[in-house]
Structure formats: structure tokens, C-alpha cells
């Protein structure tokens, strides 16, 4: 049941992304952007329902492996995107962010069911676990949107600086707007990710007996946290624009590789799935 609902959500995400791409190609059709927003919002709700159904159907353990994690990432990124556009109406961002959302949801609809059945083990069933999962994936979701925005910045910078005043030039927002948006996303993502680190340590104390055990996942998270922390600090010494955008790209690539490495290589970490 949950998988059918998830497929519906994915179809809605795909339609929303398509609408945003159409808007980017033909900025005169403002309705494409509003349609895209409505579709993504609907997809977000349907996705939430599918997550709820999956938890009651399969016990919720599936969200602790790579596939489920990416699904949650797409869901929170969509939510963050919807919220972002409320306060910062730059609809052209949609053409860059919604395809990312779609891609992170896609793995979940292949295969017939979850690849990790069962309930979440009792040792980690703590209030701080919920907060840990939400903030870890929420922080990464913001980093993902920052990645899309940084990409837009680099494209626009190439146009502006290279004196190519073509279609991209007129469709992309100003460099200043993209730079500031990127900075805000990195800053808030970092703050949320910090909470994930602390709550993660609390859960680790319960499950593994110690706050810090140099588990590869812990080390990777620390590196990511330090990198984004450095970016927040570097802003004050004048790193911005192109170099900041490049750092944002690098940061997210690191997040992505560590996520995939921890999830795909067996027994490299005790984090997630097994908890032992």
C-alpha cells in the first residue's frame, strides 16, 4: 500500500519538476511556476502519507538504510523548498531543486518493498532518536538546496563574467540574491546539523555505551560539520561568491559520498539499520 502511495508522490514530484523546468524555459508562463508549486506541495503531502503508512506496515526500520534515508531526504528537501519559496520568491530555483528532490525519491519506488523490515530496536527508541533523524536529514536537505543554488550561482557567474548575455542570463536571478540565499541555507543547515550531531551522540550513548566511539559515520559527520562550520566562519573573512559556491558544491559532494559509503559498504558502520 505504502509503495503505491509513494509512487503517486513520485509522479507528482516529476510533474512538479517538469512544470518548473517549463517555467525556466518559458519565463513568460508564470502559471507554470504556480502549478509547479502546487504539484510539489501536493507531492509533499502524499509523500508524508506514504511514510506514515510504511511505518505502520513495515515497522519503520526501512528508513534507517540508504534507500529509505534518501526518501526522507527528498521529502524534507521538498518541504524546505516549499517553505523557502514562501519567504524568498525566486521560482527559477525550482528548476534546479525539484529534479534533485525527484532523484532522491526515485530509489524508493524500485523494488517491491522495503529492504529492512521490522520495528526499530528498543535500545534506540528514544525521543532524541526522532530528533536526530529529523535534524540530520533536515540539515542535509538544506545542504542539498544550497547545492542547487550554488550551481545556479556558478552558471550565472559564467554568463555575467564571460559576457554571454543569453537565455540563462535573463532567466537566472542576480548573483547577489543567489549568494545571499546560499549563505542563509548553509548557515541554517549547519545549525540544524549541529543538533543532529549532539542528539546522535546521545543515542550512541544508549546503543553503544559511549557518546563518541570513532565510528566511521561519526567521523564523517564530524568532518561535514567542521566543513560547513568553516564556511559559516569564512563568510566573515570575505569568502563569498564564486569560492563560496564552489565550497558549497564540495561540501555536498562530501555529504553524498559519505552517505552512500556508509549505506552501501557492508559492516563499515554500526550506524543505522543494524544498531549493533
Amino acid at each position: 500500500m505504502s509503495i503505491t502511495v509513494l509512487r503517486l508522490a513520485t509522479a507528482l514530484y516529476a510533474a512538479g519538476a517538469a512544470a518548473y523546468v517549463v517555467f525556466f524555459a518559458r519565463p513568460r508562463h508564470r502559471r507554470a511556476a504556480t502549478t509547479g508549486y502546487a504539484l510539489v506541495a501536493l507531492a509533499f503531502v502524499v509523500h508524508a502519507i506514504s511514510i506514515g503508512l510504511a511505518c505502520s506496515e513495515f515497522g519503520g526500520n526501512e528508513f534507517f538504510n540508504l534507500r529509505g534515508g534518501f526518501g526522507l531526504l527528498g521529502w524534507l528537501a521538498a518541504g524546505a523548498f516549499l517553505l523557502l519559496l514562501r519567504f524568498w520568491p525566486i521560482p527559477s530555483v525550482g528548476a534546479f531543486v525539484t529534479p534533485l528532490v525527484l532523484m532522491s525519491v526515485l530509489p524508493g519506488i524500485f523494488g517491491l518493498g522495503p529492504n529492512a523490515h521490522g520495528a526499530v530496536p528498543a535500545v534506540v527508541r528514544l525521543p532524541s532518536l526522532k530528533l536526530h533523524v529529523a535534524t540530520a536529514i533536515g540539515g542535509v536537505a538544506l545542504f542539498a538546496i544550497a547545492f542547487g543554488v550554488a550551481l545556479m550561482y556558478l552558471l550565472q557567474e559564467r554568463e555575467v563574467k564571460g559576457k554571454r548575455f543569453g537565455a540563462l542570463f535573463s532567466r537566472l536571478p542576480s548573483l547577489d540574491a543567489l549568494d545571499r540565499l546560499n549563505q542563509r541555507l548553509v548557515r541554517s543547515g549547519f545549525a540544524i546539523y549541529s543538533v543532529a550531531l549532539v542528539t546522535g551522540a546521545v543515542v550512541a550513548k544508549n546503543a553503544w555505551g559511549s557518546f563518541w566511539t570513532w565510528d566511521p559515520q561519526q567521523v564523517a559527520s564530524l568532518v561535514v560539520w567542521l566543513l560547513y562550520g568553516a564556511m559559516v566562519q569564512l563568510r566573515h573573512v570575505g569568502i563569498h561568491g564564486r569560492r563560496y559556491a564552489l565550497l558549497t558544491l564540495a561540501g555536498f559532494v562530501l555529504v553524498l559520498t559519505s552517505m552512500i559509503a556508509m549505506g552501501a559498504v557492508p559492516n563499515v558502520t554500526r550506524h543505522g539499520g543494524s544498531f549493533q
Partner: protein
Amino acid sequence: MSEVFLVGLSHHSAPIAVREQVALKDEVLKAGLRGLREVGGVQEAMAISTCNRMEVYVLADSAEPARRFFLDRASTADGHLYERQGSHAVRHLFRVAASLDSMVLGEQQILGQVKEAYGLASAAQTAGSVLSRLCNRAFATAKRVRTETDIGRGSSSVSQVAVELVAKIFGDLKGRAILLAGAGKMGALSAKALASLGADRVLVANRSRERAVALAEQTGGHPRDWDELPELLVEADVVIVSTGAPTYVIDAELTQATMKARRHRSLCLIDLAVPRNVDPGCSQIADVFAYDMDDLQKVVQATKTARAEEALRAEAIVEAEVMAFSAEREARAALPVLAALRRQAEEIALAEAERTLAQVGQKLDEKGRRSVEAMARAIVNKLLHGPTSRLKQAASNGDSTLPGAAAELFGIEEGLADEAAPRAEGSPPSVHMMALPEKR
């Protein structure tokens, strides 16, 4: 029959020396229009007066009064004037309003100027129903052209390009400063245009202190010393350079040092001088956006090419609107005859119905009486349906013989037709077919 005539001259046909002789403004123009209206045969008059054109539109029997309007003011205008008549005059006005006849294709001001011209003629009470309809159609045409084609897109002047570029780098200029270095004319123009992005302040630096002060007054800025240039480069975010210096005023070395002092905040250098004043190597430096006159001109040129393509689509819209306007005007010409014909027929029908009711009315109830009236009206409708549609058809094809023949055949006088609009009291407001009662 009177027609719309246009007599005028524009940047296409006349040099500025002639244009300025016939250019009239406001009250003088109003008086001129009233004077023109006094001339025999002239029913309506309107004039478009901009720095690039002076055109007089009249509803009259001939173009001669409008011609005289020009020649009385400047005999030199002879030979520069163009004349259009009927649908050609209509097309010309539509093209002007849609900015297809402008010096800068697709520029936005002309529509406002045409609206002003119409407003002026209305105020002078020289614009009647024909010119009003003509102008409203022209405005609608211009709006269609603007929304359905890309003729207004892009930047058509160097200073506009500069504004667009700066907007793509900084968004707006709130809290930022513009530095105007040098006293070139293009520089001052661009600085003014950039101020529209909301810049906090304009700093003006020039080798001659007096020129700096004068330029600062002109652009609403603050004069600064030329020697301060390195510090000014740190303070400002957008720098417009247009000095007469034969060498680089801002070289790569200075820019490097500036960027360090700015903590790498983005800097936009716009070099409007020829020979160039900004080292082209500056654009290699991170977070520096440097453009020279060539870069800006290229954008202007690209805009021109794109607009010329869009103009073809715009012409098609204009053509369709001209046809629609002409058809509407001719259909309107047949309306008085139609209205009179219909009124006459209705009067006869209702009078006959009344006579019948006077004889047999007491035998009928309210419903029955109404159905007798309805029947009379239905007969009128059915009888006139064919002639009505054929008259309208003939009129929109430009055939004026059929309405005339109809008037003669049914014995309708022209004078009577003109009063047709206000209906006779007591007659029903419309002549829709009424539904007959179920019982037959």
C-alpha cells in the same frame, strides 16, 4: 463622405531643423487644433507631437486643411510631409502607437505620447467619436503587440545595458555607492540610469575639481578628489569610467589591491571610454566584473536584431487590427438605416396589434393579449432577419450602395435615421423574439 486623413513628418522624412519648426506643445497645440477644427469640412482633429514626429490626424473631406496646418507654420515643411488616407492613415497610427515606426524599435515611451496626444485633443474638444474609437483601438493594438511579441525585450541603449548588467550582479543598489570617474557624457547618462536601481549615493571624481562639482550637481552626487581614487574604488560597488585619458586609469594592479582592501566584495567596472580606461586584464580577477564599450554595444546590437525579427510578428497584429477597425467602422455606417428600418416596422406591427386587440381584446385574457403582441413582433423579426444580415454584410465589405438602396426602398430619410438612437417612449426596449405560450 468624410474620412480619416493624416499629414505629418517624422525622423524618417524630415531633419530636426524642420521638425523643431513645427513642434507645438500643450496650450499652443490646443489652440492650433481648435483653429484647425474651425476650417470648413474638418469634423475632428488630433495631433501627435514628440521630438521625433509631428502628425496631424483629421476627420475631414480632404487632407488640405491638415497640410495647411503645417505649411502655415513652416514653409520649409513642404517636401518633407507625408499624407495617408483612410485605412492607410489608420495603419500608420497603429504602427506609431505600437512603436513600429519609432527611431528605436520597440521603445516604450511612444504609447504614452500617443495617449497624451489623444488626451490633449479631448481637452481641446476636437476629438469626436471617430478619433476616440481610432485611438482606443490604437492603444489596444499597442498593448497586444507588447504582450504577444517580444518587441520590448532587451536593452536598446548602452546605459540600459549597464543597468541590466548591474542588476544581474547586485540585484538592486540599496546601500551601495556608484562612482563616476571622468566627465564623459555617456558616463553621466549611465550614472543617472543606474541611480534608478536605488543607489545610496553617487560619488563623482574628475581631474578637474570644477568639473567634478558641476557633474555632481547634475547627477545629484558628491564631488570627490581624483587623488582619492584608490579609496573611492573600495567604497563604491559600481564604477563608471569615462575620462579622456589615452591610457588605463584603472589597471590590473590597482584592481588587485582594491579587491584585497574590499575583502573581495564584488566590484563592477564599466568602461565607457574610447580609448579604454580600464585594463581588460581586470576581468580575470575573481569577483571583478569588467565591461567595455564594445561589450555593451554588442548587447545593444543583439537587441536590435531580435526586435527587428519580432517586428514582423507585430506587423501582422497591426494588419489584423486595421482590418477589424475598418470593418467595424463600415458596419457602423449602415447602422442608422437598420435602426430606422426596424423602428418603422415595429411601429407598424404594434399599431396593427393594438387595432386588433381593440376589436377582440375583451374576449382574450392577459396571456392571450400578450401572445398577440408577441406574434406581431415575431413577424417583424422574421421578416427583417434576412435584410438585416445582408445589410451588415454589405457594409462590412465596404459596399455602401445597398444601405442607400434600402433607405430608398423603405422610404427612410437620412435625417430620420440620425435620430434613431433614442427610442420612442413606450416602445419596448428590445426586439427579442418572445416565447409564445404553450397553447396554440
